[in-house]
Each structure stands twice: as C-alpha cells, then as structure tokens.
C-alpha cells in the first residue's frame, strides 16, 4: 500500500524535500517508530514526522485519564510525557531511519532558556527541522501561556533562532485573539515556517461523579470538530506569510484527501495528520492517492501549485457572520 515516490506530491518545505505534503503530527506518533508496528503503515507515506514534545528534563506527564472521545473529536491532556532531550538525541534519534522520511523535533519548555537549550541540543543532532510548541494547552508553565502572548512568542522564537540554523517552525495556538499578529511577530523574530493549529482547550464532564473526565480537568480538543477553526486560522496566517514565502503545515481534523485539499487551498504547503491516524492507521496512502487524483483532474503538475489558491468571495457578496 506504500505510495510510490511521486514527483507530483513532493513539496519543498524550507529547503527540505517532503515526499508528500502529509506530516505526522507531534504527540500522535511517539518518537517515530510506534506506528510501524502496524502492517501496511510506512513512514515513507509521510513527507515528515514530528516527534513528541520534548523538554530539557524528562517529564512524567499528567495523571490518567488522558484521552477521551468527544463528538467528532477527542480531548487529550498528556502533559508532555517525554524522556528529556538528551535521551531523545542520544538514544532515540540514532534508531530512526532518516532514509524513510524527514524527522522534525517538537520543542517545549517552562522558560525561554529551556526552549533555547532544547533547541540547541537538537541543532547538534541529525534532526531535519525544529518545531517550537508554544501552544501546548496541557502544561502549567510555558506552552500556551507563551503562545497566547505575541511578545512572549516572539521572545521564544528569537531565543531558539539564535540556537539553531535548522528550519524553525513555530506551532501556533488557536486559543488567542489575533493569530495573524502573533505570526507577524514570530516572522520578525526569525521563524521559517508555521504549524497551524494546535488543539483548542476543552472539557468533558462525567455527570455521575460530577468531575471532569480528563485527569488534568481540561484538555486539548483535536479531530474533525476543530477543522473549520483550523482552516480559518491557516487562511489568516497565510495572509501574513505570503509576502515572505513562509510555508505553513496546516492541521486540525484532517481525515481524508478532501480535508487535506481544503488546507492546501487555504494556504498550507503541507498538511498534518494526527487524530485521523487513531481512527485509521492506514489512512496515509488513501489521502496521498486522493490528492494525486485531484491534481490529475485539475491538470496540475505539482501539489505546490495548489497552496493558497483560495478564491475569496467578492466583498459585495460578503455578509456579516453574525
């Protein structure tokens, strides 16, 4: 079922070649090898794989329950469980097959110094790119607390920029007032690309115990339920990115080729797949094939021609959303 290398699907992303526009999302595929347990799954079907959020020291993560299905989606509050950056660089990266795909580190921390130190450690490793997660809703310090404040976001990006010359991707939170302004500041601070969006904060309640189902009380909402929110945010960030030719990994609720195409049209150069893998671990080749068919039907030579081709309705047709 592996997608054969197909030049139509290849994407240039910050100088890296992704074999397909699909990117496996951080937190959904462990440290890159977990899904290879599944017969028929191959990392080769993804243009890149984002590893689990990594911090300076090992973190045990949150108490259970950590995941719960909600209508058209799910809540998670993993709490950045990870073995710490030294372990990841020394013990895990050497076991990954960089011939299969591009591997992207996902960096987190409770302080600007920690973000910078983790980034510096990854800079000194075979990792292909670094994604800074300033949008994790499930930790008390750092994460979304930084990502919702454009000043703080810019300071984190600036610090990480100084620590690496690898492609730097900033993962933006949807839980903020003006995502475009935040993106603008991150570009000034040296971000090479964006991941849009991380999860939305949410809650589920057990009415018998009258307690939140999730051990951490609140969690991040992902899956199809957040797709419309994600599409709008990608469109908004793309407006800021376009003049600088800065690419976006669009994500949030993609489960099929049509969803992926929507993100590309809205302005994404690559499309993230997270929750959909939980539904169907063999979804990658299906989406690749669907995108391929679409390109053929529309006489396009490359998926890159599709990015940002959104035709907005003219102002006269627009109505107030309320």
């Amino acid at each position: 079922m592996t997608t054969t290398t197909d030049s139509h699907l290849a994407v240039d992303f910050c100088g890296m070649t992704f074999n397909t526009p699909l990117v496996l999302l951080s937190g959904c595929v462990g440290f890159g090898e977990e899904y290879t347990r599944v017969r028929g799954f191959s990392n080769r079907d993804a243009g890149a794989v984002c590893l689990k959020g990594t911090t300076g020291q090992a973190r045990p993560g949150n108490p259970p329950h950590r995941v719960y299905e909600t209508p058209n989606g799910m809540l998670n509050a993993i709490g950045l469980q990870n073995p710490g950056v030294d372990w990841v660089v020394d013990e895990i990266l050497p076991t990954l097959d960089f011939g299969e795909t591009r591997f992207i580190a996902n960096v987190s921390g409770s302080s600007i110094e920690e973000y910078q130190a983790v980034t510096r450690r990854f800079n000194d490793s075979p990792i292909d790119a670094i994604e800074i997660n300033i949008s994790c809703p499930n930790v008390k310090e750092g994460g979304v607390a930084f990502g919702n404040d454009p000043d703080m976001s810019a300071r984190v990006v600036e610090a990480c920029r100084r620590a690496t010359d690898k492609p730097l991707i900033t993962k933006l939170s949807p839980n903020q007032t003006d995502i475009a302004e935040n993106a603008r500041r991150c570009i000034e601070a040296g971000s090479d690309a964006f991941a849009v969006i991380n999860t939305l904060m949410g809650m589920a309640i057990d009415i018998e115990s009258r307690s939140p189902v999730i051990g951490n009380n609140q969690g991040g909402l992902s899956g199809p339920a957040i797709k419309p929110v994600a599409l709008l945010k990608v469109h908004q960030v793309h407006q800021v990115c376009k003049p600088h030719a800065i690419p976006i990994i669009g994500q949030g609720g993609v489960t099929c080729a049509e969803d992926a195409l929507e993100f590309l049209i809205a302005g994404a150069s690559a499309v993230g797949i997270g929750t959909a893998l939980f539904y169907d671990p063999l979804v990658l080749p299906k989406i690749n094939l669907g995108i391929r068919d679409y390109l053929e039907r529309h006489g396009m030579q490359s998926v890159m021609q599709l990015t940002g081709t959104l035709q907005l309705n003219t102002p006269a047709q627009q109505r107030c959303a309320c």
Partner: protein
Amino acid sequence: MNSNDNSHRDSIAVEEALILAHQAFEGDQYLLRVGAPQIAASARPGSFVHITCDRSRPLRRPISIMRVSAREGWVELLYKVVGEGTRLLARHQTGERLSVMGPIGQPFTVHPQRPRPLLIGGGIGMPPMIFVAESLQGDTRYRPFAILGSEAPFPFKPRPSRALVPGLDDEVIAAMPLLDDWGIPSRLTSQVARPGCHQGYVTDLARQWLESLDPQARGEVEILACGPHPMLEAVARLADAFDIPCQVSLEEFMACGVGGCAGCVVEVQTDNGPVMKRVCVDGPVFDARQVFPAA
C-alpha cells in the same frame, strides 16, 4: 540506515472483519465473533484488539480477546456495554464488517517452574483468562485452576463441575462448561446468591484454595488476573500475603493503541522510581507488584 531492532514492526494487523456471530447475554454482555485471520494467527493470551465500534464514534475501543481459531481465522470477544462506543458496537449485526486492529500488547506468560497457574477473572475480565486456559489445554506440564466472578449473570450456563478441586466447600461446584470440557477445573463466585457458586469475592475463594495447599504446592502457584481495578488490587494483596508471583491485566482509555500517544498510561514502580507505562504496548499485562506496590 536503521540501526534499531525492527522486531516490533508489522506486528499489528488492521482487518475489515466480517461479523460471524453477535450474541446478547443478560446484563448488557455480548459475545462477538469476527473473521480476522491475521489477528487470529498471532494473538496470545492477554492480547487485545482495537476496534471501530461505529463510524459515528471513530475513536477505537480496546477489547480483550477471549478465544481465537488460527485454523478457522476467527477471533472471539466478550464485552459489556459500558459507554457510547460499546452501545453502538452492540447494534452491529452478523454479516456487517468492523475494522479490527490487533493483536496488541504484552501477553500473560506462564512459567514451567510455576505449574499451577491460578487464573482469576472478574466480570469482563474473564475473557483473557479463558484464552490462557485454552492455551494450556492438554499441556501436561500445567495444572491450571480458574476462579471466575461476576455480578451480572454469567454469559454461559454454569453446570456442576466434573473436576474435583480439593480444599473448597463441597457446595461450591458450579463451573464454566467450556473449561470443564477442556479438562480445566473452574469455580464461580458472585456477590449475588447463585446455585453452586461461592457467594462473595473471587479473592475469598482464592484464599481458601491457597490455604488448603501444602507449602510446596503453594510454591508452584502463579496468579494471573484480569478484572476491575479494585479486584486486581485485592488479588495483588493476596498474592503478596502468600508470596506468590502475580500478573495483572489493566484497562485504560486509549486513543492510538500502538504506543504513539501516551494516552493510556498507568503508574508503575521500577528500580529507578515510578514511571508512566503505556497500557497498550508496555502492557496490558504487568507484574502486580509494580502496579500495586506493597502498602
């Protein structure tokens, strides 16, 4: 190239499994048999499948495997309706297909130096114990004994056992017919009075049986257990009291089922202190002492 040991790769199959039988029992319990030859071929006692209950609730649910036939290519599950996913699963009928992923997880292991495995299953924790029992059927090295407890009516018709179990009250004679047919003695417990069943906890009966053994025989016992968390904790305490090794199979909400999301963790004690282990791929079977450290 990859310098890693790749033995984990390709161990889990995803099959569009035909429902061969789907039978309802009292107490919202269902017996589901699906055609899934790849899973049947490599499943082991303690393995579970991750199943799409319904397209409208696409996050899969983990369900332990009760029986497989590698030759006939089927997998049998016993589940209880506990939430929205299993409620929707119960609606699917023979002839329909379900996406079933498996086998997943670290299985139970029996050890020849412990030839008297005591299998304890509570409620929907019974299925893996039946799988263990079937795997030991006809193996002359082992003399397993199963204690099954349920508050809901048993999803089979208990009958007086043909196998004698010394050390237990004479009136506790009801057994699971399938196990009896395999020549494996079993006894049943319930909080509710049921003919031939011990009225009380699985651990009461287990204690009675262990106390009846001489020290040498007791040294040959290993406990394997699956069931509700409080029951497992009581079983772990019992094992501790008798200084018997004990393996328990745990449950937790899951998302990926393959080790990718760390959504299913349980705290486990190790030599280096507590760590969070994933129930799906590090478990579901754990050493009871690691999960329930001695108080």
